[in-house]
């Protein structure tokens, strides 16, 4: 991979730091009066999601990270690994560990495309689409006529996620959910 010097650091650039691939969030050029210039950099560690703040002397460089983001469809899991397939027609499959899956595990649905982050051809992160349609597999019976505002109740979805839904929702209905907030949006 190429090396990038501080002047090339910008949001979204993928670099290696302390052995982990990171994505640059922000780079602030700081320079006192007539003194040495520095770059104050925020980087997201793509393995842990944690944000690091580091300072670099102007002109220092970091090795680029071979990080790719692409779409893959979820296929199935065998309890140990989760399997995804490229959507580019190659049918190439990738096995994903639970650690890389993280919170996305509760938003998995077959044949839905997820954004996969690959580092050196290994999956390190899986992001669900912003909105996903899932079936209610368990909830208290719906209250007829209660279509306006009012209370909410928990509902378990086919993916395993539990979300708050309006009282009128019934088992078997398909709902549109915002995966970023984990909130009910509407009936699908």
């Amino acid at each position, binding site marked *: 991979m190429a090396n990038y010097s501080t002047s090339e650091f910008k949001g979204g650039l993928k670099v290696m730091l302390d052995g982990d691939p990171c994505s640059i969030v922000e780079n602030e050029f700081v320079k006192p009066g007539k003194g040495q210039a520095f770059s104050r950099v925020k980087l997201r560690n793509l393995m842990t999601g944690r944000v690091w703040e580091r300072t*670099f002397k102007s002109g220092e460089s970091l090795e680029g990270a071979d990080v790719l983001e692409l779409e893959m469809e979820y296929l199935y899991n065998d309890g140990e690994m989760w399997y995804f397939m490229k959507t580019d027609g190659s049918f190439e499959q990738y096995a994903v560990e639970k650690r890389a899956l993280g919170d996305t595990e509760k938003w998995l649905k077959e044949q839905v495309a997820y954004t996969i982050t690959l580092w050196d051809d290994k999956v390190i992160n899986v992001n669900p689409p912003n909105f996903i349609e899932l079936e209610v597999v368990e909830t208290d019976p719906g209250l007829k006529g209660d279509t306006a505002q009012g209370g909410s109740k928990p509902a378990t979805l086919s993916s395993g996620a539990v979300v708050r839904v309006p009282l009128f929702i019934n088992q078997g209905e398909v709902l549109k959910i915002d995966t970023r907030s984990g909130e009910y949006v509407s009936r699908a």
Partner: protein
Amino acid sequence: MEAEWRPTAEITTLHARARLIAKLRAFFAERGVLEVETPVLGHGGSSDVHLASLACQATTPEGRETLWLQTSPEFHMKRLLAAGSGPIFQLARSFRDGEVGRRHNIEFTMLEWYRPGMAFAALIGECDALIRHLLPQDPGPLRQRRYRELFGEHLGIDPFTEPLADLQCLAGTQGALDMADSPRDDCLDLLMSLVIEPTLGRDGVDVVVDYPASQAALARRRRDPQDGEWVAARFEIYLAGLELANGYDELTDADEQRARFGADNAQRRALGRPEVDIDERLLAALAAGMPPACGVALGLDRLLQLALGKQSVAEVMAFATPRC
């Protein structure tokens, strides 16, 4: 690229910028300071180790020559002083390679002015008055802060005497980087930028004085009457965590100036940075006799950013570097 043709400043901001610049010119006109225009190109460049100059090849009657884009109008303006111009100011386009960020742009406007015969403290007062003249709100009182005291207050160290190894360790910890091989001034610069600067100019205008003599640049050096340390006759003005202005009791000794240019270039060689052509005409002007003067350079775009309530210098420039 679709929106890339657009200005980085709103048109209303450019109107406000023009109004403030008219106000600024009135301020100097009232005080009898002459507006001058000096070249952006020069045969000499700034030797300052931490400034990267841009150079270009020009065809002149001398043939093909390297001309340097000025990092500030200082050298030309000092030559005017030596020629008897009296007090002068300039709104000068200045260029510093590699400096791009929220507070920096490779090409920017430097407001620089010189006051022959004026005392150091009086120039600080004038600089403060100008800042107040352009700001829509009262920034609070002017406070003088000594470099040494600031380090004591924020970091519990004496920047003049702290052992180098301890300083490197402290700077490395504060910035989460390795400073083990860094010289003293680099460590101090890092601590100043990361720890002290963000706190300055809150509820008031802070003027920092008594810099270490090693950071004198083109200022005179003198012994501190209080503690006997060699300090630079230099001040920096901070407002809202932003460094706005850098002033000197100007060095007028040609031999000392030549020695400092030489020391800068030696340091450049040691660091593997390109050497800069020394401005022989400036040295000749100093040798001919430049009157004692104080001078100050103020980053106009930063002051306008604060006056207009913007978050970056790009928002007060028609086309900041990424879109130029």
